[in-house]
């Protein structure tokens, strides 16, 4: 029945098949890591191309049109295909373990979510080879995105639609997992903060992504089927797109940053050997940020002409978010206060985050000041702001989280020396790249400029910025080397190498695929730490040893996503020739067919008998 018993010594084909069909959250985490990592490198290379082009005025490293494609794809790739999947990798790897669950609520959907993301991302990037990538900015403002020639923006629309569906599924999955699958005793107010942020973020996904879905549909209808939503000559209104995009887009940035806050809230207590300061306030602040995040979207539209009343309201509402975020910053500082702080790579990223993100948040409040934003908007000041929060917040968190949970995911600790080299070069390069951009912006350099003109005193700043980007690239390469070195040379460590506090560290290494032989009984916040202070090594079981019910692997999620991928081409090219409709129908047929199969074929999963448990664990 189960093929997983044989995972150890299988050939390449078998491993591949295993990953294509897996529904195990830990393996899906690895898939997300590979996918997200790949796209991060791709987006990073695009960033380098941007910086090379801008190293001198009137540069012709790339043409204007190509620059726009690179710039658009950099933003789109980084946000949708790199940052979010990498965060999902951490959430998948950690959340079920942190709440004491055997798997997520919907293992099948978990796999489907990943494959949708993967195929959406691939579809989007196919555009490079098929006549040009999207070139209307990651925000794809209409009507530019409607009139943009070629198929680039069509790939944007369908690629994001498909991967967006995957994200929505993942969001619902985490919500239900966290609500229904917590181990006995794990009340809401005992959940680790990473779980809490995952929870809130999943809710944000649930309510934010539908707006993007509709926006993308409208854009697709306008581009591919001749409707007039954004076409002024048919009475359409392009501002609708801006609203829909930002109703999604602003919560999206908190979707990125909240899990990052979650990571730091795990790393900092562990390496300060102290309980998180103000846990309740941290939870409250997380929820509040999520809530407020829905009410500020129009701060991206101060210059659209919404009128002074709307601008004022959104400006003030936006500033309000500084308060809960400040609560978090100070709580981290006071977690460190009085602690026994051990500084290693994971901790370095977390410490580096505090000043970096604070600067980014503060420029956030500055751009929220509407009359000042008339100057900042669409200038490099905004580029500086959001890279400070995204790189200084999200990317730092991903690095911190990977260093921290690598031993849980792969059984080995990443090399410390290489880790520190990565941190210092990346950190230094990051500030070098983006600090100067604040000034460039106010000196009159608008963003999304393929070239800037000579003699405007913008040269020096751009050179500095480009140098910084290369330092970051150096750091990133060292990290890749680190992974290779660790994988080939690193030593296996125990299940709890950091003297951790939360449940995931209560499981031995390697993590058995059913996670917990017996579900643990949670007795408070920092469940493992409580047991440790009382002299025990592990948690008391909450149930007798019994058969364990596990889901079956399935290839259907892969096929379902593949169907949509194929259908995507049909949608895009049917405008050129109706015979492409056949492709559309084949693709949709595959997808609906697999849905049908899934629906009529009973899949009860399988049981691991308690007698086999030890053997299964290997």
């Amino acid at each position: 029945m189960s093929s997983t018993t044989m995972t150890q010594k299988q050939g390449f084909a078998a491993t591949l098949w295993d990953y294509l069909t897996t529904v195990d959250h830990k393996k899906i985490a690895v898939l997300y890591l590979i996918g997200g990592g790949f796209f991060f490198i791709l987006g990073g290379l695009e960033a380098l191309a941007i910086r090379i082009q801008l190293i001198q005025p009137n540069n012709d490293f790339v043409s204007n049109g190509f620059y726009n494609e690179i710039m658009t794809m950099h933003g789109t790739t980084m946000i949708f295909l790199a940052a979010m999947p990498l965060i999902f990798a951490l959430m998948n790897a950690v959340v079920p373990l942190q709440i004491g669950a055997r798997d997520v609520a919907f293992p099948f959907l978990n796999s489907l979510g990943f494959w949708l993301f993967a195929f959406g991302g691939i579809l989007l990037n196919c555009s490079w080879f098929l006549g040009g990538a999207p070139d209307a900015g990651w925000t794809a403002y209409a009507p530019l995105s409607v009139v943009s020639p070629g198929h680039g923006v069509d790939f944007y629309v369908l690629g994001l639609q498909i991967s967006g569906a995957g994200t929505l599924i993942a969001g619902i999955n985490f919500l239900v997992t966290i609500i229904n699958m917590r181990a006995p005793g794990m009340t809401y107010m005992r959940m680790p903060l990473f779980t809490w942020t995952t929870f809130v973020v999943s809710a944000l996904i649930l309510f934010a992504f539908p707006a993007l879905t509709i926006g993308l549909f409208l854009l697709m209808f306008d581009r591919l089927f001749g409707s007039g939503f954004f076409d002024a000559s048919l009475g359409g209104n392009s501002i609708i797109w801006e609203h829909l995009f930002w109703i999604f887009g602003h919560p999206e940035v908190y979707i990125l940053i909240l899990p990052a806050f979650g990571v730091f809230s795990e790393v900092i207590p562990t390496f300060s050997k102290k309980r998180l300061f103000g846990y309740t306030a941290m939870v409250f602040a997380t929820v509040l940020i999520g809530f407020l995040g829905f009410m500020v979207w129009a701060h991206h539209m101060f210059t659209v002409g919404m009128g002074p009343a709307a601008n004022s309201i959104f400006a003030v509402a936006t500033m309000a978010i500084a308060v809960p975020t400040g609560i978090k910053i100070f709580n981290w500082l006071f977690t460190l206060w009085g602690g026994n702080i051990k500084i290693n790579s994971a901790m370095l990223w977390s410490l580096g985050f505090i000043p970096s993100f604070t600067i980014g948040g503060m420029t956030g409040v500055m751009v929220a000041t509407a009359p000042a934003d008339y100057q900042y908007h669409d200038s490099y000041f905004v580029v500086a702001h959001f890279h400070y929060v995204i790189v200084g917040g999200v990317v730092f968190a991903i690095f911190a989280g990977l260093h921290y949970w690598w031993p849980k995911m792969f059984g080995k600790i990443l090399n410390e020396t290489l880790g520190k080299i990565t941190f210092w070069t990346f950190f230094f390069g990051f500030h070098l790249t983006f600090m100067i951009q604040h000034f460039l912006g106010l000196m009159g350099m608008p963003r999304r400029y393929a070239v800037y003109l000579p003699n405007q005193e913008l040269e020096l700043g751009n050179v500095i910025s480009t140098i910084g980007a290369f330092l970051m690239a150096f750091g990133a390469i060292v990290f890749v080397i680190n992974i290779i070195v660790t994988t080939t040379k690193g030593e296996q460590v125990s299940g709890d190498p950091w003297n951790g506090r939360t449940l995931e560290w209560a499981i031995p290494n390697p993590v058995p695929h059913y996670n917990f032989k017996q579900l643990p009984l949670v007795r408070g916040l920092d469940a493992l730490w409580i047991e440790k202070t009382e002299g025990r090594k592990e948690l008391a079981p909450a149930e007798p040893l019994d058969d364990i019910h596990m889901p079956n692997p399935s290839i259907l999620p892969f096929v379902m996503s593949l169907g949509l991928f194929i259908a995507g081409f049909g949608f895009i090219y049917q405008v050129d020739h109706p015979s492409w409709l056949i492709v559309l129908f084949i693709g949709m047929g595959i997808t609906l067919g697999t849905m049908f199969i899934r629906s009529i074929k009973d899949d009860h999963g399988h049981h691991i008998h308690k007698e086999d448990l030890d053997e299964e664990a290997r």
Partner: protein
Amino acid sequence: MKGWMGKIRVLFLLSLLTFILSGCGKENLTAFLPKGYGAEVSLDLIILPLVVMVFVFLVVMAIFVFVLVRFRQKKGQEDFIPKQTEGNKVLEVVWTAIPILLLLIIAVPTVQATFDLADESSKGDALNINVTGNQYWWHFNYDEQDIQTSQDLYIPTGERVYLNMMSSDVIHSFWVPSITGKMDTNPENENTMYIEANEEGVYYGKCAEFCGPSHSLMDFKIIAVSPEEFETWVADMQNVDPEETVAQDATEAVQEGRELFDEYSCINCHAIGSSPTAIGPNLTNFGDRTKVAGVIPSAVDEQYSKEDLVNWILNPDELKPGNKMTDAGYLSDESFGEEEASKIADYLMQLQPSEITPDDAGEGLTVEQ
């Protein structure tokens, strides 16, 4: 709004002196050295939050550094377990309350300034100009004065001028950092903004909303002249007779250029005089421009030459990818060559209806710098 804020601004500018010396941007481009009312208001609201932010940042960094120095793990202390504090109500209230106060300090002037900058009470009496953003050039229509022009926006100093802004295609954004912050031009609805220049000068404008391949080449200029000079300019522009654009004593090339201009249907897209233009910039005072198509040549302080103009007429797409002149019929017309272009250029360059040119916009900031 003014008063003490003004003083802070002076202080700030002084303290930025070093920075200015090392360059805080081109004087007629940067937002750091405002030359107009909008830019001043914005700068006030850049400085005030910045001061607050620097304060908050210093507090955060003070705690941060202290904590790291004081509580970093010491040798032999690896197993020390510190006290597991849960929280501290007083502290938590403090760091909730103080930020709220600080934000209020920012929020109040923000709201005031937002309404101030949207004030339209004097619109009826003021000079109104209709601004149209096009891929990739700007059109200015002085409706009441019956003047049409493109690329260069002439305004009088010291008074509010209202801009009514629309786009003819995709969204653009009107930004002249040293005069005022930006405002979008949307295809379906008109936006209004006022500008007020304090000093004469030529100020660089940029398109700040992503609008396609030549987004970064969609420059324009505000030419602020004294009110008297502005009067003169208006009168001169109103006097233009589209039929009589060639001077009596013009060279033969110019005369021929005039005819070629019609022959190759340039006039289909480019109006001369006050008739509204459909597709391309109005060329009435083209001879007074400092740039061809807003950016050519691209080095900022250089004036275009005839060579540049001929080059533009022959290869518009190369110089401004994706611009709409690429569709012009003459480009695929075999009979059109360098010679024709040169004659047309001669004609266009003598279109100088007004004695007021960018050179009149005060010293220091003009192209001849």
